[in-house]
């Protein structure tokens, strides 16, 4: 399949999943009701459901899903490791410690912004910690040290969480588990705006660096000889991708598999030219997470199941099929 075919296909898939997600939900609405609400008419309850609950949620799904996927693709290129994913630098651990602290100490009462803010701060703390370790050895940043530091920092945060939860009441444990499994249910126009303000330029910046990323994926030495400013590209793209992840995790919790599976799936179809891989990963991630959220809302409605369950249940078999096919036809 050519990259253009896939691109058009993914664009249509994203649009269709956005439309479906606005049209469908646990409360059954008719198409006429949804259209009226979009036009600002009709039952105020329906207007609230469509304009203040479903729409921001869909947009947040597009931003977070696309963001996680493009961050994952970037990390895989930079770390030259197929297991790299957006949370690799201990970002999910840092964010979770922030969120769990807020829940354990009852700071949620301070306002709806307390939890995302703490999660974001935790994620940034993890990033800073890991980068300091990776750059401490000398001028050049060693990606192997970066990887190891990320794994170790993640393990440390995970111990912190286990400790905080061990001394917390059951209610805190329950809220923490739910937060860590991720959800788009908390979407508001404000969270959409905050995420968009950061994610949009960050995605454009990563796409603009696709060519040096192509060189880096081959090897740092080669990239250097071919005239890329290796250190600068590495640092900028790592920080940008890490911050996309941090902003996503702050508003939606830790949603797994999108950042790992989506870039690999796209790569298996169109190859690893980052000029196509990065934007198509964004589209694929956006469509995938929006549909996964729709599944999370509809599967057991009115109950919502954690979105991470859907991303794993759908993403993993799909990925295994792709993987088999790519092995079968070298």
């Amino acid at each position, binding site marked *: 399949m050519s990259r253009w075919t896939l691109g058009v296909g993914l664009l249509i898939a994203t649009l269709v999943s956005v439309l479906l997600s606005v049209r469908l939900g646990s409360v059954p609405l008719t198409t006429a009701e949804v259209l009226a609400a979009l036009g600002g008419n009709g039952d105020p309850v329906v207007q609230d459901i469509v304009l203040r609950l479903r729409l921001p949620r869909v947009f947040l799904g597009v931003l977070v899903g696309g963001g996680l996927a493009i961050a994952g693709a970037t990390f895989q290129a930079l770390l030259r490791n197929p297991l790299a994913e957006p949370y690799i630098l201990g970002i999910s651990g840092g964010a979770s410690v922030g969120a769990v602290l807020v829940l354990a100490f009852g700071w*949620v009462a301070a306002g709806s912004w307390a939890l995302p803010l703490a999660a974001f701060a935790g994620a940034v703390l993890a990033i800073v910690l890991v980068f300091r370790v990776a750059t401490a050895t000398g001028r050049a940043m060693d990606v192997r040290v970066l990887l190891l530091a990320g794994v170790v920092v993640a393990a440390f945060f995970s111990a912190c969480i286990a400790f905080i939860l061990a001394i917390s009441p059951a209610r805190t444990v329950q809220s923490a588990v739910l937060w860590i499994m991720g959800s788009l249910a*908390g979407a508001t126009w404000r969270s959409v705006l905050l995420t968009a303000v950061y994610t949009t330029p960050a995605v454009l910046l990563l796409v603009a660096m696709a060519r040096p990323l192509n060189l880096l994926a081959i090897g740092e030495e080669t990239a250097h000889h071919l005239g890329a400013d290796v250190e600068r590209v590495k640092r900028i793209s790592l920080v940008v991708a890490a911050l996309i992840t941090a902003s996503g995790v702050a508003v939606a919790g830790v949603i797994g598999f999108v950042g790992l599976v989506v870039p690999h799936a796209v790569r298996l179809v169109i190859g690893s030219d980052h000029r196509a891989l990065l934007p198509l990963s964004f589209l694929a991630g956006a469509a995938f997470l929006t549909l996964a959220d729709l599944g999370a809302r509809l599967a057991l409605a009115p109950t919502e199941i954690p979105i991470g369950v859907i991303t794993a249940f759908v993403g993993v078999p799909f990925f295994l099929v792709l993987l088999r096919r790519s092995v079968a036809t070298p």
Partner: protein
Amino acid sequence: MHALLLTIFAAACGGDGAEEGAQEGDRPEPQGSATRIISLVPSATLTLREIGAADRLVGRTDFDTGAWVADLPSVGGGLEPNLEAIVSLRPDLVVRFAGSQDRRTPARLDDLGIPHIAVRPDRVEDVLETVRVLGRATGLEASAAELVARIEAGLAEVEERVRPHPRKRVAYVLGGTPPWVAGPGTYIHELVTLAGGDNVFSDLGELYAGVSPEEIRSREIDVVLVSGTDVFDPSLAPDARIEIVDESIEIPGPHLADAALQLAELIHGPLAPASP
């Protein structure tokens, strides 16, 4: 990430409410007058106090926080407690949670030859049964019967006082994103019903579940009860009154009539006076 989730799941499964408890009828219930009691179930600890057995307690759990038990040594959590601490206190009775959440403790207590009884503090009826069971185990049947009568009278009074008030449609929110609500089959549902409220999530397929925000927006709700420090977005129920509930009422125990009264006043405002 997976190791992290596993840790948390283990903690969550170990620490969460004892909703699904299998009734255990295979072991004869210890009878008589236990004098050195460790209660692993905080609500049973309160019941023991109410029936006049407070001075027989020799240990508590980390979750018993009242000043009157503060001087007692703790044996850790109520589920999977510290067995060494239990043995060292030489109890002649351990009161533990019924159900399958902690399979290890009953087997170990049997090995150690420590008598134990299981109580299930999940429903209104369980609370009354727990009082009776603890009365038999301590030889304080009379004061247990008196406590049961007092609770039943208290509940009857609440029912009578809410009768003149029109029933209200109530959602009980336990926080979280998506918001977690109490469904049918829970102690909270029973309490809300006793307090003159109709749980709008009576159709929930589970005991507790996170529901789509639009589900809350689309239902007609008079009062949203939000438990503890959890945050609820008031724009999800613009026509409802939002009241904060003290989390302590969610623990089934001997004070359940007071809890029902508290809830009734939150739901209806000032109640009709009790008939003399």
